[in-house]
Every structure is written in C-alpha cells, then in structure tokens.
C-alpha cells in the first residue's frame, strides 16, 4: 500500500471499519511509514476528542417550556 492509498482508506481505519482484505496492507504501511502513522494517530485522537465534546444544555426557560408541552401532550394522549 502506498501513502496515497493509505490516506484514501484512513477515514474507515479511524472508525475501525476497514475492509478485512485491506487491513493487513494498511497495518503494514503504518509499520513502515512514520508520517502516515503519525497522521493516523492524529486523526484517531481528533475523533476521540470530538466524541468526548460536551454538549450545551438548554436554558431553564426553554427546558421548562418543552417539559410543559410534553406534559400537556401526555395528558391529551391519556384521555384519547
């Protein structure tokens, strides 16, 4: 596998979804090529950081309004 081929499948590799027939060639290239292995490490960690990104919460007013609507709808459903 060349660097270009490795980069082409790196998205799948980052997600651990490489096709089984491609995996050995990719692993071999990572063993031999320091820049690709480093780039791959960066992408794996980048994805890890994104997956751990904390989400923002709604404001109290928004949350209360949504819960009120949910309560009202649940009340309507139970009467239907």
């Amino acid at each position, binding site marked *: 596998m060349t660097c270009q081929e490795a980069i082409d499948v*790196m998205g799948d590799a980052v997600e651990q979804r490489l096709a089984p027939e491609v995996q050995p060639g990719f692993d071999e290239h990572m063993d031999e090529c320091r*820049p690709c292995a480093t780039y791959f490490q*960066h992408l794996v960690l*980048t994805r890890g950081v994104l997956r751990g990104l904390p989400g923002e919460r*709604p404001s109290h007013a928004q949350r209360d309004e*949504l819960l009120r*609507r949910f309560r009202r709808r*649940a009340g309507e459903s139970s009467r239907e």
Partner: protein
Amino acid sequence: MQRRNHESEASLLARLRAGDETAFAGVVDGLHGRLVALARTFTSSPALAEDIVQETWLGVIRGLPGFEGRSSLRTWIFSILVRRARTLAAREARRAEVPIEPNGAAGGEWQPGAGRVGLWSERLTPWDFVDPAALLQSKEALHVIRDALEALPAAQRQVVILRDVEDVAPADICNILGLSGTNLRVLLHRGRARIRRALDDHLRDHPRQARPGAPRAAAAGAARTDGSSRTSGKAT
C-alpha cells in the same frame, strides 16, 4: 453491549410514550446542544436555529406515539431536525448533495484518489496524549476544537457532528442528509483534517497540554495496538 443498548432504547421509548417527564428531560438535556449545533449549519441566524430546534422538539413530542423505532431515537430526532431546518431555513438552506469544495477550499490536505497533497512536505510530530478526555479538561483546547468545528463549511460540520460527535451510523447519516456514501466519506475526512490541523497548531504552541511527561514513542503508538516502531519518513 449492543443488546443492552437495544433494551435501554426500548425501555426509554416506553417511558417516553408513557409520558415520563424525567425521561424526556434526560433526552432534551443530552441532545439539545447537538441539535442547536446542527441547526446552525443550515442557517446563519442564531434565532432561526433556536426556532428550528424548538420545532424539532415539538415534532418529537407530537411524533412519539407514532414512532415505530425503525431507526434509533437519536437518528429519528436528527431526521426531524433536518426536515424542519430545510423547511424553515429554505432561503438559506444548503443543498443536501453539496458539491465537494475544490481542494484549496477544503484546507488543501486531501483529495480522494490523490492522497495527501504535498505528501509529506510537513514534518508531523506525534501528539503526546493518549486520552482525549484529558485534553478536554483544558478550556483552551476545548475552545480550539469548538472553534474549529464551528469554522467548518456547513456540509463538513453536519457530517462531523453526526458521525464523530454523535456516533450516528454512516448509513443513517446518508439517509438523514441525502448524501452518497462517497460524498459522506470525503466530507468527513476533510472536516476531520481541518480539526486535526487546528488541534495540531494548538498543541505545537501549547506542548504542556499534551501530557508533558508522556514519552513520544508511546504517544505515537496510541492509535495502534502493536506499538511497533517505524523507521521510514519518506512518502511512498
């Protein structure tokens, strides 16, 4: 694990359908911020983005009794948001199958079938951290990542939010956004490449945030399982 997830999803759905307010509050707390982030990719107006999210939640409340669970709850909610966004932000809405930006506009790092441009003219240094959660303890790093995500072109931001932040399955993302698998892969890689670049620039400027005590060789092996050494630095 998958079975347990399936069961907990089924149990959550049952509670929501039974009108369990605590369950609904949990879903709102967990997803609201993500929905706002996704809504902002469809409009430049923060107020309209909030309206889109509000409409989405109302659609969820109305639709829960009829939701058959053929997709996951989160995927269903994201689908509602995208439909609402396209309706409410019609004037500003992006086309679903966006043309892939020319390489220069995408940050110049990669184009399909051609590998990394200038491979490897830049010397890459392994990052000295192995636990992403540790990096997120740094407010500065958190800002860098959020800013980099915010700065992505809308189509890249949509797929990175759904795939990497929210872990929605690729096939579901293609359905939600109306993308081909190839387009999804390209957009994802370009989005990740830009965020990688921002993070790399930040870590070069702030090496202490990258676990100062960690040996470089160990960090280089973080993405791998065998930890074997590499010798060649030349592109092939």
